[in-house]
């Protein structure tokens, strides 16, 4: 018997002895809580969002019937202008910090610390490497690329921290919260909208990014999910209303002012089930929303909601696709990245970049995932600021990929080992 066998045997013996009678009986307490917890339909697992929403800016447009004739004229004029611009080969102009831009540095989190990464070589430089008692993860650049935010696990929960891109001037902008699910920078960088969860119920907070410590909690009559700012003005916050309990209204897409005023519904058709209206993404020019519809039979369809007219249509899908889900706009709003489901018993997901108008079946990127316990194993994807690639997380291997949208082989940005490891963000630099 060698030393390894001895340690193995001693360890197994110690584990058995040490684990006995340590935890008091709590089965009834568990069952009491599960009795009060509704089960989720199986397709709703696709709708789970990830800790930080790093998708690109959302956009608004108010709707008013009396303005429709004027809006039609304006739309025609804009269309003519767009045709002229197209004829001369120009791209649509979006106000900064929206539209195509140059790529800056990449920041990622591995093993509780933040690093800047050279995507060419994979070399990592420590950025925020502080106390061993703190775990930093989920970085996200401000829209203008001048600041970063990230989550910090501390005693009692999590905090959102804001810092310079080099890690200096780090300061918490939220109190310690039980769980922070999402954080999205306002277009002007002065505020961040935060989604926290207490006992699974999502709540919206608006915090300032300076050191003023201003924090507004928005009171809503139902749980919230999937928050972001409506671009380009940032006058409203976009979110999904959740149906968790019988008393909650059906799910839908809503907008509300950052001070909690002016709650309004944006969705225009009745929800098909409690898992409907998922994965909401706004176009950077403020004209459209994308979202996923969950059909009663579990068929996933991406809808395009025109915020000007209220028209709600389905993004075309190739006949061999079993469904499409989780859309994200490109910075110029021309393309959409989403997951396409393959037909067959075992759900597989292919990451695809396709034109918004559905004129082609798009380009399949070289990454396929499956349905894991936390939703698709390909997740948290977003376009780089220059629109040439998609950054995505592959949960099964804790790997962050940079995938060119032409379908050529990707490169690894970072690898991790723990949940939420390797999630990255790309700095936007002025074009």
């Amino acid at each position, binding site marked *: 018997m060698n*030393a*390894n066998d*001895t*340690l*193995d045997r*001693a*360890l*197994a013996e*110690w*584990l*058995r*002895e*040490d*684990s*006995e009678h*340590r*935890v*008091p009986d*709590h*089965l009834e*307490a*568990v*069952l009491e*809580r*599960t*009795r009060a*917890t*509704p*089960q*989720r*339909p*199986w397709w*709703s*697992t696709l709708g789970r969002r990830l800790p930080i929403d790093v998708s690109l800016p959302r956009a608004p447009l108010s709707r008013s019937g009396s303005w429709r004739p004027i809006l039609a004229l304006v739309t025609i004029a804009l269309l003519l202008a767009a045709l002229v611009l197209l004829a001369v080969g120009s791209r649509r102009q979006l106000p900064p910090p929206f539209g195509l831009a140059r790529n800056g540095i990449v920041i990622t989190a591995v*093993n*509780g*610390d933040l690093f800047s990464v050279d995507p060419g070589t994979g070399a990592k430089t420590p950025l925020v*490497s502080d106390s*061993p*008692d*703190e*775990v930093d993860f989920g970085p996200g650049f401000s829209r203008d690329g001048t600041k970063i935010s990230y989550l910090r*696990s*501390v*005693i*009692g*929960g*999590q905090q959102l921290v804001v810092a310079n891109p080099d890690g200096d001037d780090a300061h918490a902008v939220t109190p310690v919260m039980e769980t922070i699910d999402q954080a999205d920078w306002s277009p002007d960088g002065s505020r961040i909208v935060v989604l926290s969860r207490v006992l699974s119920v999502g709540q919206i907070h608006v915090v300032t990014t300076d050191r003023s410590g201003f924090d507004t909690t928005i009171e809503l009559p139902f749980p919230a999910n999937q928050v972001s700012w409506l671009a380009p003005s940032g006058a409203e916050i976009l979110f999904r209303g959740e149906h968790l309990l019988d008393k909650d209204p059906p799910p839908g897409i809503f907008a509300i002012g950052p001070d909690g005023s002016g709650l309004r519904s944006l969705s225009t058709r009745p929800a098909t089930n409690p898992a409907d209206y998922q994965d909401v993404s706004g176009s950077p020019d403020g004209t459209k929303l994308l979202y996923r519809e969950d059909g009663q039979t579990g068929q996933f369809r991406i809808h395009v909601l025109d915020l000007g007219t209220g028209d709600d249509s389905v993004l075309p899908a190739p006949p061999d696709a079993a469904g499409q889900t989780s859309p994200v706009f490109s910075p110029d709003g021309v393309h959409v990245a989403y997951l396409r489901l393959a037909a067959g018993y075992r759900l597989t997901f292919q990451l695809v970049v396709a034109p918004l108008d559905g004129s082609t079946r798009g380009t399949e990127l070289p990454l396929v995932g499956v*349905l*894991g*316990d936390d939703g698709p194993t390909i997740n948290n994807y977003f376009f780089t600021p220059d629109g040439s690639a998609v950054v995505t997380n592959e949960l*099964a*291997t804790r790997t962050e990929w940079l995938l060119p949208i032409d379908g050529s082989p990707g490169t690894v940005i970072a690898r991790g*080992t*723990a*949940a939420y490891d390797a999630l990255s963000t790309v700095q936007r630099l002025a074009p």
Partner: protein
Amino acid sequence: MRRDLVERAREGDHDAFAVLAGAAISRLDATAWLMLRDADRAMDAVQTALIRAWRDLPALRDPDRFDAWLYRLVIHACTDEIRQVRRHRFDVDISEITTSPVVPDATSAVADRDQIERGFRRLGPEERAVIVLHHFLDLPLPEVASTLQIPLGTVKSRLYRGLGQMRAVLDADARPGADVSEGRPA
């Protein structure tokens, strides 16, 4: 019978889920205790895992994977618990210590409980999870990989690293004046 219970629970039968939870909870508690070393936090982690199991059971495609799925949920809940409170990482320069020429191997004799516990406490959640699943729940390494949804090679490297760290602690205890460095990984 067990598959039938899982299928019934998946269809919303809470009584069936209660039977499954009752049969599993003592091993889940033990697993969580070993991971967290704190009874209250172990209870929290197991409750979180079982509530999530009940809530998301309709999404479980293969009823025969119920046990593995439960273990995964508990391990994830424990990892979240660890991350929410504090994180200790330790660098142990195994090569430097084990190449020392005159030191007797402490594991050649049966290490005492305190030594093993001290070594175990120094492991990160990933190494603890692999060791608990393999050495406590007796899962073969491929099953550990399947349970944690990580490659088999990663399981082996975590096991190797974890046992190596423990062995280094035991060896250091046996070596007068030897020092085991602590710190964060580079």
